[in-house]
């Protein structure tokens, strides 16, 4: 864990890939006991996802899996078997929170719907994360990062500098799967607070599509009040709000207030063209952006990213250095806040991982624990916790239950 806050909270995770594991990671980082249930033999799908240490695949060496599952207990269990189902019930009986991201169909097959689980544990908070939620015509539709980015409306407006002949695109990596897991964690913590106060449980129906939609306020406002349908071509009515090339990389240059533009003109050494009528306000700069981009790029190309970033920020101008992973890892600000953490991993080399973005003034930060290897805590949970004997456990293993 990073902070001992939820140390009396028991969580069962039956998740795969990103959204549910990330939701449960956030709870584990805050000290909750998270028991992650994986399928025997193959485990979570992210065990087989890039990046792998030294490009050598192995179920204990995926950086994505290791990150998503630090601070958790890991057990294997097959809930399709009768005994597996019984054990699952025993785990849920003692849990405060159950986090999962299986399809509604699959949960019904396993008799693990909220209705089923409520019979075992009436006060449980069940967080269900699926691409399109538990109800509605698309509830059984398949979704992945690509699909939810486009179905959530973000694809259609990406990128700002695109045009109609170029296809809408998604965000990098699995940003929206992660954002859905984060939203689910916020929902879960609110529901847990309520449960703690009143003893009342509930099912949280988290839709990844709706988690993407929360990014759409500008497009929805334009439609709501102006009946405008924003596409990739017509967002750029003001400028600059762009990324420009520098000597050694790229910089984000964007302003909301006119005074910011005027201060940036000074940073550029007040070139003559800056006084032209064509660039007198954000809208005319938008209209003549092609010309302005050329003029500004001439200057930015002569300077380094850091130089432009620092000089602008010192004058209170909100430019942003476009940082690649190596630069983020070296960032002095993040280092001063000790954001990145080294995790001791008995299975692997010690590696640096992103930490958590929050700091608590009254709670000491602790060191996180490495993600479990497949079935690492079977004995601890099945024998010490649930009272099975070691010979029971080996029989369960032979029978393919764990």
């Amino acid at each position, binding site marked *: 864990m990073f*902070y001992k*806050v*939820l140390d009396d909270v028991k969580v069962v995770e039956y998740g795969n890939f990103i959204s549910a594991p990330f939701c449960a990671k956030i709870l584990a980082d805050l000290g909750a006991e998270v028991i992650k249930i994986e399928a025997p033999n193959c485990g979570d799908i992210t065990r087989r996802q890039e990046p792998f*240490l*030294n490009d050598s695949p192995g179920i204990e060496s995926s*950086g994505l899996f290791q990150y998503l599952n630090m601070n958790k207990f890991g057990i294997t269990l097959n809930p399709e078997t009768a005994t597996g189902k019984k054990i699952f019930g025993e785990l849920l009986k003692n849990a405060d929170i159950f986090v999962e991201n299986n399809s509604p169909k699959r949960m019904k097959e396993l008799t693990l719907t909220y209705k089923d689980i409520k019979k075992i544990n009436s006060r449980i908070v069940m967080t269900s994360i699926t691409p*399109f939620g538990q109800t509605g015509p*698309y509830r059984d*539709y398949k979704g992945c990062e*690509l*699909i939810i*980015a*486009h179905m959530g409306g*973000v*694809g*259609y407006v*990406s*990128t700002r500098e695109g045009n109609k002949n170029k*296809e809408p*695109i998604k*965000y*990098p*990596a699995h*940003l929206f799967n992660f*954002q*859905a897991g984060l*939203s689910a964690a916020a929902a879960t*913590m609110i529901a847990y*607070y309520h449960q703690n106060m009143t003893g009342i449980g*509930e099912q949280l129906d988290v*839709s990844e599509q*709706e*988690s993407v*939609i929360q*990014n*759409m*306020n*500008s497009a*929805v*406002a*334009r439609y*709501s*009040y102006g009946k405008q*349908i*924003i596409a*990739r071509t017509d967002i750029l009515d003001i400028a600059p709000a762009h*990324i420009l090339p520098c000597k050694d990389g*790229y910089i984000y240059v*964007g302003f909301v207030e006119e005074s910011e533009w005027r201060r940036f003109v000074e940073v550029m050494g007040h070139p003559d063209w800056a006084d032209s009528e064509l660039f007198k306000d954000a809208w005319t700069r938008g209209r003549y952006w092609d010309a302005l981009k050329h003029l500004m790029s001439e200057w930015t190309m002569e300077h380094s990213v850091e130089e432009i970033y620092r000089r602008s*920020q010192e004058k209170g*101008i909100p430019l942003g250095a476009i940082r*690649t992973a190596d630069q*983020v890892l070296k960032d002095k*600000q993040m280092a001063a806040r000790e954001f990145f953490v080294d995790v001791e991993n008995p299975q692997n080399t010690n590696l640096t*991982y*992103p930490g958590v*973005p929050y*700091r*608590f*003034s009254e709670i000491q930060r602790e060191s996180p624990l490495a993600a479990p290897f497949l079935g690492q805590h079977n004995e601890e949970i099945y024998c010490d916790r649930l009272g099975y004997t070691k010979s029971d456990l080996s029989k369960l293993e032979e029978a393919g239950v764990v």
Partner: protein
Amino acid sequence: MRNSPLSGLRVVALTWVWAGPWMGAILADMGAEVIKVETNQRLDAQRTVKVCKDVGAGINHDQFNITNRGVKSCTLNLKQPEGIEIFKKLVKISDAIISNFAPRVMPNLGLEYDELKKINPDIILVTLPAFGSNGPDKDYVSYASTIEAVGGLSASFGYHGENPVLSGTYPADPIGSMYGIVGLMAALNYRTKTGQGQHVDIAQSEGVSTLIPEIIMEYVMNGRIRPRMGNRDEIMAPHGCYPCKGDDKWVAIAVGTNQEWDATRMIMGNPEWSKDEKFSDQFRRWQNQEELDRLIANWTKDLTAYDVMNKLQKAGVAAGVSLNVEELINDPHCKKRKVFVEQNHPVAGKTIVYRSPWTSALTATNPPAPCLGEHNHYVFKTLLGFTDSEIAKLIDKKVIY
């Protein structure tokens, strides 16, 4: 709002633009009483900066009404000593303060955590600065795009083989909002157990970095910078967005397994080209994805995007329309799930808002966003006990302003 998860909780919101307000709106959805403290001295930028033509509703208009729905608004000028005194009275009767102002603002007003806890010992303060409230760059200024740039997201965003570009949305802000809720709820749980209040400080840029571990770990593990890939995936193909019938209409298709590829071929009517050796397994499809994308686009271009999505989904293949905002709001699935709600704002009129990204039996729909100072009477008279004549004087002196 009886039975709501957060009923009885009072939150003071020193919020503006997006990350703070959206956090407040969600807390309000969950039953908290969220009181936004605003001032004419410096209006919330979303009351003044407009994305669409002003329809005459002035400062009670536009994006502000989406991101601030459900909260209450009072006006208080914190540049005046009397304003600070009244603010402190509000702190005394509240559970938490949330703020996404720059980290220097609250200390400059004498409202840092150490001062606030003297007024209310178990108060929780949640701050959402761009880069954190400590460290050498803490006073650096930002918009969401700045945070996405510095957090490491923007460098990987763009078309395959091209320069990085800006997106049409700003996820850094709602990411900050959700982390804000996580931090607040953690602190509330801690307070329930120990009686101890807390300052929770959340760096939004770090928040962005926690959502892209593949990009960070690729460098840590293999020393590589992730290239920009547009819609492409590391292993899946086809995995793209294809043109459909109509003006600027597109459908996204993601095929992983051979079974999904066979289903896709069947829906396409088993064209001759699809039997080619070079598309026979996932790795070959991935290697030959450019050609594959052209051939699939040739199939989708005469069909509607909805048609392609529904047919492929019924065959077990992940596909989805690249929805524009109008299609999104009117989509049968979103309609059924009541994702978008039409509100009647007292000044701006018909306003479309969207609800929190989850539902449960206990969440509620909220009133429209407040007009500036709409709840002054409630806050200053009902909650804080000022008389009408005292309030009139405070308005005269531009303390309530």
